[in-house]
């Protein structure tokens, strides 16, 4: 959170209108994502009551657990749907060997799971954990089993933790990056209320539309009830509608009244369809709004890395296929943690370079600054092993608060590959003078590259250069002492972790 977003939230609250935040998309949105809306059975852990899913707005598939039944059939149908979807991505491209990376195959397209809110991401993780150790029945294809579904859900949920990965995204997160509402973040987790703020019906304000929408007892502006999007059902729905229906079903079952049993089963389907359909439509509307945003180049780069991971995991499933372990061993956990930290820092830095809003936010947190070039020494050199090396210097005057240290490497959207090292920080007047040294793309003393050096009077915006975050060295698994998890443990899934580059 930054002071800029705080200010916009205040303005949204005062004007009762959502404020523009980031005007670009930070995640690649695929042509054919799978929208996944789960509802859990209240008072149980990872037991789906119903799931609405599909890739087309007009064709939602509703899967329902029969009254008081086990979700066995639902899970098998869910596995069929999801695994068929994943399996439909088959085209690969051949990538040539490049620097340290060997030649490899990579899928040209990959699956993408969209859920309504963050809690649904946790639900995907829990469901994956519940299912991935399920043994397939004998004489069945493990590639279409419930256990395989669990493995894939775990794969999606693991990547949702990875900053910048676009395999599994929550629509409320994406919307809240684009717009800032005049309510709290907690309330932003309600998809229908968030959409009401962003896109209220004509003649009403975002605030009033959201207030009407969030009350689960009152129909929204479109005349339909917009229930909480799950995975937990609305308690009043449970008590007032679902529970009486289940009781009626019990009575019919006790009497052996097959007609009534069938009727109640149909009613259950209708009830859950009515519950989920408004959220389904909301989700597609949200996606429509988000698709109008231009994607930043880094989103494409990260999606390419995601496709690499997808290819690697598919290969793993066909060659070994054991489910992910319950707990990481120490080596994998350390690697994973380091990778997540790096990915977060690099993701943030790239976003700042490619999105003016993020850059502006960073200026209010002290991680970026804007200023005017007041002096340039294009011929400045430092001594090197084979004669002087060209390191042009410039002075930048800024009135932004400065929270930098000497030696920090900065870069700006004007040319992200030109890095500037901070050499001196001097207060002057109402602001600060920064002495910066160009360290990349300088050219040589005889052949200077003038395009890398800003001119006096240029306005620059600078933040940390993404390459400032480099990967710490880990010993190989064989060389890790036993006190730190050692080489003895060797789950094949851990090997995927090692080949991973940030």
């Amino acid at each position, binding site marked *: 959170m930054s002071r800029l977003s705080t200010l916009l939230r*205040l303005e949204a609250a005062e004007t009762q209108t959502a404020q523009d935040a980031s005007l670009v998309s930070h995640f690649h949105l695929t042509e054919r994502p799978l929208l996944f809306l789960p509802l859990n059975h209240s*008072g149980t852990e990872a037991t789906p009551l119903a799931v609405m899913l599909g890739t087309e707005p007009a064709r939602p598939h509703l899967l329902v657990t029969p009254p008081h039944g086990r979700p066995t059939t639902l899970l098998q149908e869910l596995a069929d749907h999801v695994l068929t979807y994943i399996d439909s991505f088959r085209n690969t491209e051949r990538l040539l060997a490049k620097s340290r990376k060997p030649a490899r195959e990579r899928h040209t397209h990959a699956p993408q799971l969209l859920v309504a809110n963050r809690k649904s991401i946790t639900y995907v993780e829990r469901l994956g954990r519940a299912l991935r150790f399920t043994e397939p029945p004998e004489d069945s294809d493990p590639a279409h089993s419930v256990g395989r579904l669990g493995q894939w859900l775990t794969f999606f949920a693991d990547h949702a933790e990875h900053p910048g990965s676009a395999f599994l995204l929550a629509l409320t997160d994406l919307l809240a990056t684009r717009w800032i509402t005049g*309510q709290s973040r907690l309330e932003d987790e309600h998809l229908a209320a968030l959409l009401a703020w962003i896109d209220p019906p004509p003649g009403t304000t975002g605030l009033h539309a959201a207030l009407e929408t969030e009350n689960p007892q009152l129909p929204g502006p479109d005349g339909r009830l917009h229930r909480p999007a799950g995975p937990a059902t609305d308690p009043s729905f449970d*008590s007032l509608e679902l529970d009486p229906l289940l009781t009626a079903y019990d009575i019919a079952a006790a009497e052996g009244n097959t007609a009534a049993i069938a009727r109640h089963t149909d009613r259950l389907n209708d009830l859950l369809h009515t519950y989920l359909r408004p959220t389904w439509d909301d989700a597609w509307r949200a996606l429509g709004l988000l698709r109008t945003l231009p994607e930043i180049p880094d989103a494409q780069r990260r999606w390419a890395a995601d496709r690499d991971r997808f290819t690697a995991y598919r290969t793993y499933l066909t060659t070994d296929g054991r489910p992910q372990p319950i707990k990481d061993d120490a080596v994998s956990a350390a690697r994973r943690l380091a990778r997540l930290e790096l990915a977060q820092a690099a993701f943030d830095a790239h976003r700042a370079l490619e999105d*003016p809003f993020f850059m*502006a936010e960073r200026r209010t947190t002290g991680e970026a600054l804007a200023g005017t070039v007041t002096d340039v020494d294009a011929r400045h050199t430092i001594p090197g092993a084979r004669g002087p090396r060209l390191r042009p210097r410039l002075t930048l005057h800024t009135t932004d608060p400065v929270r930098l240290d000497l030696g920090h490497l900065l870069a700006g959207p004007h040319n992200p590959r030109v890095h500037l090292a901070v050499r001196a920080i001097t207060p002057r007047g109402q602001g600060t003078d920064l002495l910066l040294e160009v360290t990349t793309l300088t050219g040589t003393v005889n052949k200077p590259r003038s395009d890398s050096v800003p001119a006096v009077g240029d306005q620059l915006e600078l933040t940390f250069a993404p390459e400032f975050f480099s990967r710490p060295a880990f010993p190989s698994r064989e060389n890790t002492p036993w006190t730190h998890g050692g080489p003895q443990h060797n789950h094949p899934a851990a090997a995927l972790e090692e080949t991973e580059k940030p």
Partner: protein
Amino acid sequence: MSLLNDRLDALRGPAPAKGHDARTLAALTTNPGCARRALMDAAGVDKDAIAVHLGKPRPLAKSSIALRNGAVFEQKVKADGGAELLRLLRDVLGLPLHEAAHTDLAAVGSQDASLPVRHAYTRTAVLEAARSPRSVRTLLDHPILQLTVAGHPVYLEPDVVAFQVDGVFHIIEIKSFAVLDGRADPAKVAAAVTQAAAYVIALRELFESEGLDGDNVSHDIILITPRNFSRNPTASIVDARKKIAALTRQLNRLTRIGPLLDALPPHTTFDLALDRGERPTRDAKDLTAALQTAPARYTPTCRHFCDLAYVCRSEARDEGLIDVLGSDIRDDLGGVDHISTALRLADDTRRPAPDQVDLAAALRHAHAVRTHLRESA
């Protein structure tokens, strides 16, 4: 004391008082500064009924299905005089137990099963067990405990078992959230431990009031929850020392109820004036005015533990308080209470008070950055 009780009774009206529960205890630790909630909980006011009467959403409405699943789990654990519970204590905690005397304190054997009567009954049973010369093993089911909150005794109605072995009492808390691979939702565990910590403190109070050693109540609580995705129970020991210390500190620091009552205009009441058909007849505007005499301290998280959350939210919004935007925003703007004040400081149309100078400079900077962003877009 009786004068204080009379005043609290007047605040509540003739409806029976409600005891403290998990939610009100959570509120105590997460939002201790809310005078409105402190008064209403001390008086045992039915806050949910007030929210309904004022036409606001009920944030704590419970799912009948979830409640039933929870009750089934609890019954399963407690069935047959606690046979399953004893097995868990034996297997998981390694206690050398063969049997224990199970006493259900919900069945008091009298017509009057009100909280004071059940509390007296609990007290007798606990003291009897504690003073018994033999080292008895006792399971006390559905006890009613008393805790001093804001200088005023309130009843706790745990669905919990106090378990005594070799002279030391343990609090057992049965919860229906799952422990998955040895881990559970931290928020839910924290709530359960807060609740159990309150029972530990209450039980120690009882001991000490009788000249017994409060350390005979263990600071380790026993949490019984479903294991992984099954409905089979598992037991875990949680060290509640930190929570007990934190809660004790909160309880000691709470503004006493007396001064809060003194601050109300005379004859203030939150009575819903129920008619014979139990329908509230209190004028909604009049009730709202009465509520507003007791200052609230709203945060968006109130909805997790207070029935009045939506009542206070619309009030806070009408007043333009920053609180409605969340505690992260409020902390970011420390020293300013109103949305409009912060915005006027940002656009430099309001002169900052001496303690707002730094914040005002930061807000003006954010405003300049935003203006630059809009202009260059």
